[in-house]
């Protein structure tokens, strides 16, 4: 580290710390005292928590009290969330059946527009940009319950009917829910509705993670839930494990370890640091496994992305990026078992963003997996996998720009694009005169990765939406925003690491900006590419390009991009 010279001047500032912005200002010391009297916090050994991450500190800064009226939807099936809940008083219903008839469904409408509807849309297209009917705004209110400082929630009007017609489980005081989805960034698997006046403690994922880290009982509880609900399914989906006999697979499941790396809120840091030196950014990525180390269990990627790299000069060269279902370390373990050697790891494995992994310990592999494994089943994705079909520069670019997150990225071949903007006009024509992307973005090897929603694998934009207006369509995975229940809070736009969501001021039929009655401020709506989900022929941008210069493509498999390049 260099020592500052006398001539160097510095500004002084306090280093930002994790709890500079508590989850909720209303979580006072009195509230924390009350929480510490209740289970499970009363049984937690506060001496096991470090001073800087005390149990009291976690509850004060990472938790808040939430109150719900009967019928309020606490979490909705399909939504993404970053917090878990524990009931303090009252009862909640876990709905085992879908509530799609009672709530605005994630990703509706599911039906494609008919020819007549499309013609009508063309004829009735508004000349006013971002025009919204005031009737649509009124319709939104039927779903929403505004409860002052507690924010806005969806609610169900007829709870007794819900009990009659839907299979439910009643949760009561002390029970926890929502923790798996919060920790693994997966969609909520069921909706939870308040049965009566409900008081909950909501803990954001960072706090939950630390509670699990320092309290064995909670850790066991969460792991047990994952083992019961998801682990066997994940292992069965893994190519070289799906042939194992039941007993061997169970032995693997029993011994599998869970680990998480990286920052759950990586998108905030990424936006702030994307102009930083790339080598420094790579160095800052958490190292899951190090080149040259002895293999310590095979790693399966459960969610997120990892960078596979090896030392090159003073930096690291990216070999591949791996995602859900890929394995790391299998080749080395197999080699060592087969030849009774101790070959070290050939590559580094670094977390890009936030990554959940499963680690299968070496003895379990040797005792229960390898004896049943046909060597031809071993797939080494980083040696023969799809993302080796591209140039080193492109691979580094896709990983550094985090474009590997995109399942429907818009790529424009600038060698063919005449800049005629037919794509932009077609997008506008399909969205009532308002284009939903910008024909600009990073360029690499003559290809532009335009600023259009990529419908990401890890859709960080969905985290924290208070009304569930942003969601995935269940059939296609397309991420769409329900305009009628979007309250314009900008959470999604602020979270998108690629700046692909835009907040717009809506206008009435004569072009006046619509203002909120109470605050007098313009009403905003979040807008983005919806992949023309209601158009039977697919994205208008792609179909409107005369020169075949634009494609919507899944960047998880870069081979497709190369195939398109060579069309």
């Amino acid at each position: 580290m260099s020592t500052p010279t006398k001539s160097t001047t510095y500004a002084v500032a306090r280093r930002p710390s994790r709890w500079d912005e508590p989850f909720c200002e209303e979580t006072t010391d009195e509230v924390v005292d009350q929480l510490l009297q209740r289970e499970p916090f009363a049984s937690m050994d506060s001496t096991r928590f470090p001073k800087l991450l005390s149990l009291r500190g976690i509850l004060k800064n990472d938790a808040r009290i939430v109150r719900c009226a009967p019928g309020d939807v606490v979490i909705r099936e399909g939504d993404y969330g970053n917090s878990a809940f524990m009931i303090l008083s009252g009862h909640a219903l876990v709905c085992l059946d879908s509530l799609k008839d009672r709530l605005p469904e994630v990703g509706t409408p599911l039906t494609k527009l008919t020819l007549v509807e499309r013609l009508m849309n063309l004829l009735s297209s508004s000349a006013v940009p971002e025009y919204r009917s005031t009737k649509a705004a009124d319709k939104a209110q039927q779903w929403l319950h505004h409860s002052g400082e507690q924010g806005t929630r969806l609610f169900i009007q007829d709870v007794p009917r819900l009990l009659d017609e839907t299979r439910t489980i009643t949760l009561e005081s002390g029970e926890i829910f929502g923790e798996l989805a919060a920790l693994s960034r997966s969609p909520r698997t069921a909706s939870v509705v308040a049965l009566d006046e409900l008081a909950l403690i909501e803990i954001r994922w960072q706090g939950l993670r630390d509670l699990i880290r320092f309290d064995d009982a909670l850790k066991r509880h969460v792991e047990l839930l994952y083992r019961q609900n998801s682990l066997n399914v994940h292992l069965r989906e893994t190519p070289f494990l799906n042939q194992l006999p039941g007993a061997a697979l169970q032995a693997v499941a029993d011994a599998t370890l869970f680990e998480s790396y990286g920052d759950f809120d990586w998108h905030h840091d990424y936006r702030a640091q994307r102009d930083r030196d790339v080598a420094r950014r790579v160095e800052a990525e958490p190292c899951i496994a190090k080149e040259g180390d002895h293999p310590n269990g095979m790693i399966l990627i459960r969610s997120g992305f990892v960078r596979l790299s090896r030392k090159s000069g003073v930096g690291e060269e990216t070999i591949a990026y791996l995602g859900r279902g890929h394995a790391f370390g299998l080749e080395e373990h197999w080699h060592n078992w087969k030849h009774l050697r101790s070959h070290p790891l050939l590559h580094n494995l670094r977390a890009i963003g936030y990554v959940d992994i499963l680690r299968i310990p070496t003895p379990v592999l040797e005792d229960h997996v390898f004896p049943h494994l046909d060597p031809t089943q071993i797939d080494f994705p980083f040696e023969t996998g799809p993302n080796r079909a591209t140039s080193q520069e492109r691979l580094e670019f896709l990983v550094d720009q985090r474009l590997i997150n995109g399942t429907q990225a818009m790529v424009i071949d600038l060698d063919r694009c005449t800049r005629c903007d037919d794509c932009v006009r077609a997008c506008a024509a399909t969205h009532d005169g308002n284009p939903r992307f910008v024909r600009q973005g990073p360029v690499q090897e003559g290809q532009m990765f335009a600023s259009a929603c990529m419908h990401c694998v890890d859709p960080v934009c969905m985290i924290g939406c208070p009304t569930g207006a942003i969601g995935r369509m269940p059939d296609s995975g397309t991420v769409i925003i329900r305009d009628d229940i979007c309250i314009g809070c900008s959470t999604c736009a602020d979270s998108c690491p690629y700046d692909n969501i835009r907040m717009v001021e809506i206008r009435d039929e004569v072009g006046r900006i619509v203002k909120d009655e109470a605050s007098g401020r313009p009403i905003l709506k979040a807008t983005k590419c919806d992949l023309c989900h209601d158009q039977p022929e697919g994205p208008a941008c792609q179909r409107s390009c005369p020169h075949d210069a634009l494609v919507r493509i899944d960047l998880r498999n870069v081979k497709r991009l190369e195939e398109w390049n060579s069309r």
Partner: protein
Amino acid sequence: MSRLVQQRRSLGQVGWRRSTVAALRMFGIIFVVLIAVGLWVDAEENALRDSSYSTGYLLFGSVLFLAAYNVRKKVPTLPLGSSRTWLRWHLTVGWIAIGVFIAHTKAQFPSGGLEWMLFILFVLTAGSGIYGLYLTKIVPRRLLAIGEEVIFEQIPLRRRAIADQARAITLESIESTEVLARFYKSRAARFLETSREWPYYLRPTGSWRRELEQNAKALDRYLSEAQRLQRDRLSHLIRAKDDLDYQYALQWRMKSWLFAHIGMTYSLIIVAAYHGLVAHAFRGVH
């Protein structure tokens, strides 16, 4: 040879094969259709019928089909096929229309005023189409070679920003020397603060930029090290403005060409329809 290079080369060969097959298919269709038209015209003439009516209808129908492409672009939400397919057929039918036009005119210049107007309109429309095809092949590469991508509508704003920066550098330099300010006022200001004259848009060249850069560089003998850095920043802005002007000229050419091509197509349809009416009205009168 590495596996990666082999993979990329094999993908490239697949792409080349696909595009060659597509081109051959288009030429095959054009060839077959034109042979068929030739035989048809020959049969009509042998039967002592005037082939001009048949070829006229075929030509007018082709022009209507060619014009329909623009209608397809206006209604992207209707299930009318992809723009790429339309362009392919637009080019195919366009080449066929030129062949039918030659058959219709019997490869002779017209005699009447209306016919001359129609003749010139067709030649201009077809010629602008061929020019457009040429532009679509060369302009993207030239734009890509510039480096930075700027949306056409944003270019004036970017020019303004460059001019503001240049003025700021010049004002900053006045504190220590007047050399840069004199250069800016006498030579660079007009380049940086105004749009190019129209001949530039027809044939963009970098001669003005090169001249200014040379002149700016020649000032170094009067400048200190710090002032040279300011001059260097000014030269950088001159290059940036020239790149923007070049982008503007290329993109303007693409847009103007299409505007002219579509305008002439609609004029052609109107005059051709009138020509058809007149031809039918005076049918048999010689």
